[in-house]
């Protein structure tokens, strides 16, 4: 067996035996070579985890909230994916979400992994689909995906998660802000964190008022992530929602949507790779010529890989 095959065999065996060290290596592969990771993960049986997105602006307590949720799930196998932004200048990143979750670092059932956004603009990592699949292959019950601190339009999480929790903090703005498209639309649940702050009552009524104009009633939970108040209600709601969406077809729909976006992201990655390699020396190549060339290269790559 070649070295590469031995390595792949080791990874597959390790994943089947649920070795933490191997999962860590597979997640690194998801980041460094997602194409290879997809092939590897395709060979593993997959269970279905409840993928929960946690999103909201910077500093409103998303990581602390994830930590509080982990506190409430002692019996479940839970993965936490924490995404923080990469620098547009150096490519470096300070991944600091873990700081709030370190009390769970040695918990047997909990696996926390930090990801940098690496140029992705939607609030997630470019390898997020692969990472979620890796955790599902590892047999996790829950995968909590914490996005970077978002503004109004980084909403990629809606294509990844089965349930999107939008966290707001008491200073989040007036009724017009609550009515805007984008972030406020993607919520399956709202959480108003830091609800010990008196302003949270004002936010609550603004949020309700904005919701009353629409047709969709979205549940709102009030939490204090630091003390854990209100978090057990949120966790109960998450558990119940998973049962509901598993039976009413919503989960299926979400998974279909996720698959489409996963396929899209892999194709885009392949295309980016080809564009980097393509030879533009050819005289007089125009838009159509370049398109044809790329499509041809993409098809050729795929017929080669099937051999």
């Amino acid at each position, binding site marked *: 067996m070649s070295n590469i095959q031995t390595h792949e065999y080791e990874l597959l065996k390790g994943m089947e035996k649920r070795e933490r060290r191997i999962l860590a290596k597979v997640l690194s592969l998801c980041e460094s070579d997602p194409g290879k990771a997809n092939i590897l993960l395709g060979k593993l049986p997959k269970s279905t985890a409840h993928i929960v997105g946690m999103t909201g602006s910077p500093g409103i307590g998303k990581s602390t909230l994830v930590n509080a949720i982990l506190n409430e799930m002692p019996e479940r196998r839970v993965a936490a994916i924490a995404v923080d932004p990469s620098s547009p200048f*150096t490519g470096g990143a300070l991944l*600091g979400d873990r700081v709030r979750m370190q009390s769970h670092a040695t918990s047997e059932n909990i696996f926390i992994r930090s990801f940098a956004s690496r140029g992705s603009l939607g609030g997630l990592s470019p390898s997020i689909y692969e990472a979620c699949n890796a955790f599902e292959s590892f047999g996790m019950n829950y995968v909590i995906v914490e996005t970077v601190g978002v503004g109004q339009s980084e909403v990629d999480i809606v294509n990844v998660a089965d349930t999107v929790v939008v966290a707001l903090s008491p200073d989040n703005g007036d009724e017009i802000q609550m009515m805007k498209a984008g972030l406020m639309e993607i919520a399956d649940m709202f959480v108003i964190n830091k609800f010990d702050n008196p302003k949270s009552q004002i936010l609550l009524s603004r949020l309700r008022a904005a919701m009353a104009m629409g047709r969709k009633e979205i549940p709102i939970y009030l939490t204090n992530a630091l003390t854990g108040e209100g978090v057990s209600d949120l966790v109960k709601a998450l558990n119940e929602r998973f049962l509901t969406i598993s039976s009413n077809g919503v989960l299926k729909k979400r998974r279909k949507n996720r698959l489409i976006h996963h396929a899209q992201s892999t194709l885009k990655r392949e295309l980016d790779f080809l564009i980097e390699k393509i030879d533009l020396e050819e005289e007089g190549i125009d838009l159509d010529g370049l398109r044809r060339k790329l499509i041809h290269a993409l098809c050729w790559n795929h017929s080669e890989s099937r051999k």
Partner: protein
Amino acid sequence: MIKVMIAKPGLDGHDRGAKVVARTLRDAGMEVIYTGIRQTPEQIVQSAIDEDVDILGISILSGAHMKLVPKILELLREKKASVPVFVGGIIPDEDVDKLKEMGVIEVYGPGTSTSEISEQVKSFVEHSDT
């Protein structure tokens, strides 16, 4: 892409140094995971393994380095994780050699320039065979 973890074990909460180094390495284009203060060796080692980091930096200013660093190295060995470790903080000269003998790759004391740290960390990762 180099992935580094900066960890702060033990009871001292003086994390300025750890933060300055984390920031420096970020600006040098690395992905830096910071654990926060008051971590146990077990938390640090498990986090480094779960995050699959290329190198681990330990910051200690409490004087407990001869207890904490060996424990971290021992746990890494026990868990078969071959992660190079460097140390920063207030470390007396006589302990620097002892730490290096135990397997610490470098020790950075007060006054070390940040560019020296980032350049060396890069070369440690490039030259480690893991």
